[in-house]
């Protein structure tokens, strides 16, 4: 009877793993994505039910309480969160996943230690790995959350002797690990390693600026998968290893795409302390530009937009902050009514997570075939009458193309400067995340429209209606 049950559980796990793969595959295409997510959820349900049938699970009461509590919190959070806050939400979910994995690693280490007085070498090794990855995911995600939520500054935080301190910490972690592998019956060392892992996560995200968050969020996503894989190693459960590896791979792919979109290697993103206060950069190359700009009011802006043949909207983080996506869609609808061809140009790293702009515009009911990737739209800009930049800065800075002293030099950008006219909606002349002045703003054919994206866009809608 027992062997039958165990075989059944293993088969259920296999089904779950297959459903995860199928689900992820379907998540890759807009037509099947929802179905894919559903399949993955079914896989998860099967895995959980199969686990509850396991002979070593004896006490159901508290487990059910835990599941119900977790489900309630998760469901409420998923319903309540605003689409603009999605980067934080994904961040915090990564974090709780990492926390769960590291708790399992600690718990299993403790159980082995309690039962046998010692822990086998391989189990210790895996437990250390699990605690490390899970711990980094937890505190890294929490810190990313704090940065995204504005609880702490979004610019890179550095302190004196940061690198030596990190190396010291790393060295002590390695030394502690070696010691524990030789002398596993030492919970104090194990707890110290856990603490250091938690510190690592915080120290890893602290020096990374807000604009690089798409990379961080995807990387932490990958880590949360690897942490789950580590749990699989600890419990000799292949299904867990598979599921974790899949997530690890998907997170890594996204990380790669994000880095490529900024044309910066991952190491530079993680250790470069890029952006924010790094002043005095880009000054040399930009010095010769004529520093006068032209600003217009919304009435004039509405006229330019309304009488254009084609308009391309370039949204950025500023649109997300101002929650202007609904207004933007209304503006586009008004313009389309007047016969204007409206498209959206989306830079891969616009916003604070991969696909951030796409989600916001989808929420505002913009058809996704109106959204164009950077590479597809860039060839068209010479035929575009007006490019409307809403809260984007570094991703439209021509310096990335032609100023090799600029820190963002080499980053692929949206060629807004090649359009006939550009209107930039911005709160002030302040620099973007990279701390670099944007020569686009000083071009003859660029006009600035100052104000919060939300206000300006709704004023534009009103003015366009009156045309």
């Amino acid at each position, binding site marked *: 009877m027992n062997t039958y049950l165990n075989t059944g559980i293993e088969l259920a796990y296999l089904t779950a793993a297959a459903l*995860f793969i199928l689900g*992820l595959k379907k*998540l*890759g295409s*807009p037509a099947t994505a*929802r179905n894919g*997510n559903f399949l*993955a*959820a079914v896989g*998860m349900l099967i*895995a*959980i039910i199969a*686990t509850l049938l396991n002979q*070593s*699970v004896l*006490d159901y009461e*508290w487990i059910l309480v*835990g*599941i119900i509590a977790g*489900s309630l*919190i*998760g469901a409420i959070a*998923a319903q309540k969160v605003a689409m603009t806050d*999605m980067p934080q*939400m*994904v961040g915090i*979910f990564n974090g*709780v*996943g990492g*926390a*769960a994995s590291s*708790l*399992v690693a600690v*718990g*299993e280490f403790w159980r082995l230690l*309690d039962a046998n007085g010692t822990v086998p070498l*391989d189990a210790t090794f895996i437990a250390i790995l699990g605690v490390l990855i899970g711990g980094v995911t937890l505190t890294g995600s929490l810190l990313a959350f704090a940065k995204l939520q504005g609880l702490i500054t979004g610019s890179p935080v550095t302190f004196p002797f940061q690198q030596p301190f990190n190396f010291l910490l790393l060295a002590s972690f390695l030394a502690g690990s070696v010691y524990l592998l030789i002398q596993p019956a030492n919970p104090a060392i194990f707890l110290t390693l856990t603490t250091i892992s938690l510190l690592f996560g915080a120290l890893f995200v602290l020096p990374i600026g807000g604009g690089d968050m798409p990379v961080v969020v995807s990387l932490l*996503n990958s880590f949360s998968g690897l942490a789950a894989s580590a*749990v*699989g190693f600890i*419990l*000799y*459960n292949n299904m*867990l*290893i598979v*599921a*974790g590896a*899949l*997530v690890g*791979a998907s997170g890594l*792919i996204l990380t790669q795409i994000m880095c490529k979109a900024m044309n910066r290697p991952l190491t530079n993103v993680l250790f470069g302390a890029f952006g924010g206060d790094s002043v005095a950069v880009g000054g040399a190359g930009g010095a010769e530009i004529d520093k006068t700009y032209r600003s217009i009011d919304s009435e004039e802006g509405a006229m330019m937009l309304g009488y254009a043949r084609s308009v391309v909207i370039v949204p950025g983080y500023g649109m997300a902050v101002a929650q202007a996506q609904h207004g933007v869609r209304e503006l586009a609808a008004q313009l389309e009514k007047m016969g204007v061809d409206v498209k959206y140009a989306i830079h891969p790293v616009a916003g604070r997570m*991969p*696909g*951030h702009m796409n*989600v916001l515009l*989808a929420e505002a*009911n913009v058809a*996704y075939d109106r*959204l164009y*990737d950077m590479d597809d739209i860039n060839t068209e800009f010479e035929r575009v009458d007006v490019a409307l930049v809403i809260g984007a800065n570094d991703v439209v800075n021509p310096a990335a193309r032609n100023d090799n002293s600029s820190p963002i030099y080499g980053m692929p950008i949206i060629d807004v400067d090649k359009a006939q006219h550009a209107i930039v909606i911005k709160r002030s002349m302040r620099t973007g995340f990279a701390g670099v002045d944007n020569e686009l703003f000083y071009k003859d054919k660029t006009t600035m429209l100052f104000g919060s994206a939300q206000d300006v866009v709704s004023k534009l809608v009103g003015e366009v209606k009156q045309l």
Partner: protein
Amino acid sequence: MTEGLLTGLVVFVLASFVGFEVINKVPPTLHTPLMSGANAISGIAVVGALLIAGAQEWNVTTILGLIAVVLATVNVVGGFLVTDRMLQMFKKKETTT
């Protein structure tokens, strides 16, 4: 013991390759849903949590396991629901345009 570790490693490497193959070339529109969907799957750690939380007697391990159950379930349920909410928005437009 090491044999189990090796089998695990084989499974891990092969599954990683499957992941890379399956997920490659996802359109940017789906980057966020893919990430949050994958994130929900990483909540699979709930299985590990259930296994260590299920012991009859109370000790450090079961308590840690229970906390892990709650956290992982938040991850799983929240992750799948929020992904569905996003994808629902993408769906809507397909019909209106």
